[in-house]
């Protein structure tokens, strides 16, 4: 009886594992075979790279990818700088209204910018930033999540280290840079991976603020590319999908352990 249960449980585990990977496996299958094999599975189906070429020609992937990379990096750099400064102030400085400010920061954990698309669109239109990288990135710079995470980490740094640095004559900014930042490296890594995968995959806000391929990221590009009215076939869509997920997927496979641990660490708070 126990033996049977064990076998059942193991088979379930692998079955679910297979289902979870299946869309990706299927996309690879469809992408490297001619389109008549999209639903015919045969070991002898001829291999081809034409779908990738077709997909590449049909949509400005290079531009989309460049846009995604620029937007994701811009957000990450903005977040790291702003959140570090704010987190230090909230963790280590006494000032009037600290509690209220921290409360205001935490509010953003539940009210994320995507929900406020209507007003944020108006704001950016007023700033003339529609269809620009800055328009996509700006609402995410002050990440409550990042501030919170770094604040928790900074609080664990021994104050003696800071005092020693001060006696040596370090200024406030150089204390942050030379004492706090190096000690919070694991937190920075965790936050960066979460931020990169979030913004690489983000869709709704970029859809709202971008109009042309000048600033449109991959996710938005893919939604137009895959639309039935654009009349491309499944093999080409699969190839396009693989092109769009490729860089992130490679990053994930290379840094798998860090990814999993980062998400874990970031989630537990």
């Amino acid at each position: 009886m126990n033996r049977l249960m064990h076998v059942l449980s193991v088979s379930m585990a692998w079955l679910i594992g297979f289902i979870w990977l299946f869309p990706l496996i299927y996309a690879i299958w469809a992408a490297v075979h001619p389109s008549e094999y999209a639903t015919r599975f045969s070991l002898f189906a001829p291999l081809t790279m034409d779908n990738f070429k077709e997909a590449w020609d049909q949509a400005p992937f290079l531009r989309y990818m460049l846009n995604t990379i620029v937007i994701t990096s811009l957000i990450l750099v903005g977040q790291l700088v702003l959140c570090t400064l704010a987190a230090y102030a909230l963790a280590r400085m006494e000032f009037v209204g600290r509690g209220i400010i921290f409360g205001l920061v935490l509010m953003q954990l539940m009210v994320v910018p995507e929900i406020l698309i209507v007003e944020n669109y108006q704001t950016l239109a007023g700033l003339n930033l529609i269809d620009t990288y800055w328009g996509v990135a700006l609402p995410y710079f002050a990440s409550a999540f990042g501030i919170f995470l770094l604040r928790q980490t900074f609080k664990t740094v021994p104050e003696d280290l800071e005092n020693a640095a001060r006696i040596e004559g370090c200024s406030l900014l150089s204390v942050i840079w030379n004492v706090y930042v190096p000690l919070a490296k694991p937190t920075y890594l965790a936050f960066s991976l979460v931020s990169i995968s979030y913004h690489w995959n983000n869709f709704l806000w970029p859809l709202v603020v971008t109009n042309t391929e000048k600033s449109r990221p991959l996710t938005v590009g893919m939604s137009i590319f895959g639309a039935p009215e654009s009349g491309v076939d499944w093999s080409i869509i699969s190839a396009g999908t693989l092109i769009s997920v490729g860089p992130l997927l490679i990053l994930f496979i290379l840094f798998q352990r860090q990814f999993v641990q980062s998400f874990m660490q970031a989630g537990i708070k």
Partner: protein
Amino acid sequence: MQLNRQIQAWLLLLPALCLLVAFTHYPVIKTIARSFFGFGTKWEDNASLENYRFLLEDEVLLQVLSNSFIYAAITVPVSIILAIAMALWVNSKMIGKGILRTAYFTPTVLPMTSVANIWLFFYSPEIGLLNKLLALVGHSGFNWLGDPSLSLYSLMAMTIWKEAGFFMIFYLAALQTIDNNLYHAASIENASKWTVFRRITFPLLMPTTLFVMVNALLNAFKLVDHLFILTKGGPNNASNLLLYYIFENAFSFFDTAYASALTVLLLVILVGLALLQFGVIEKKVHYR
């Protein structure tokens, strides 16, 4: 010196605070104002409850809310059960558990819109893979996304696929903190696997379950990317969800005022969920 320190603190906070206010607090206030003073895309001088009156009479909204409710009521528990099972498997001594962990987690790192394109193909009526499989057993197949009674469930299947592996991570972290002595004690007592799970593992996973539950609930309201690809809320709003409905009102029907009233409703729901998390739940589970 003390005053100096105060000024320094504010200077450090200033950039983050400005952007935070500009893109979170200010739009919240503006949304509330617009829901009372706006009409279509215009501002009126007098406050009116017109948008809210329409909200109460809007039959589409009723449909959307009931969709959101069913959507949350099914995706949240199913994802949680799957996530616990996955975490137990990956945490066991099974051969190839590293591969399984990667398999479970992969959907989390893929962009929703890209993978939705592949799911669109699985679901498509004539050439779609699911119907081809059904044809093998002689079934004529379903119109997964076009049938109003199925489309919402087809969306849910994809949501669960996308989320379960993400939640698994939190359970995995929690499982690794459980004291092994408890399991030793249970094995001395000859407890069955099910008893061990029910009496030791599951209760100790409770804080994680509540954390995951709140996040899954929030996601059920915040995550609508796949709607854009798979159903566009259709057919006839059968799979429409609140945030997508807000998007439609604001950017397809250009009724920003009504979209604002809907946003206020969404904010109330999210704040309610957050209060639930910080109030009731945090108190109950803090035996760590």
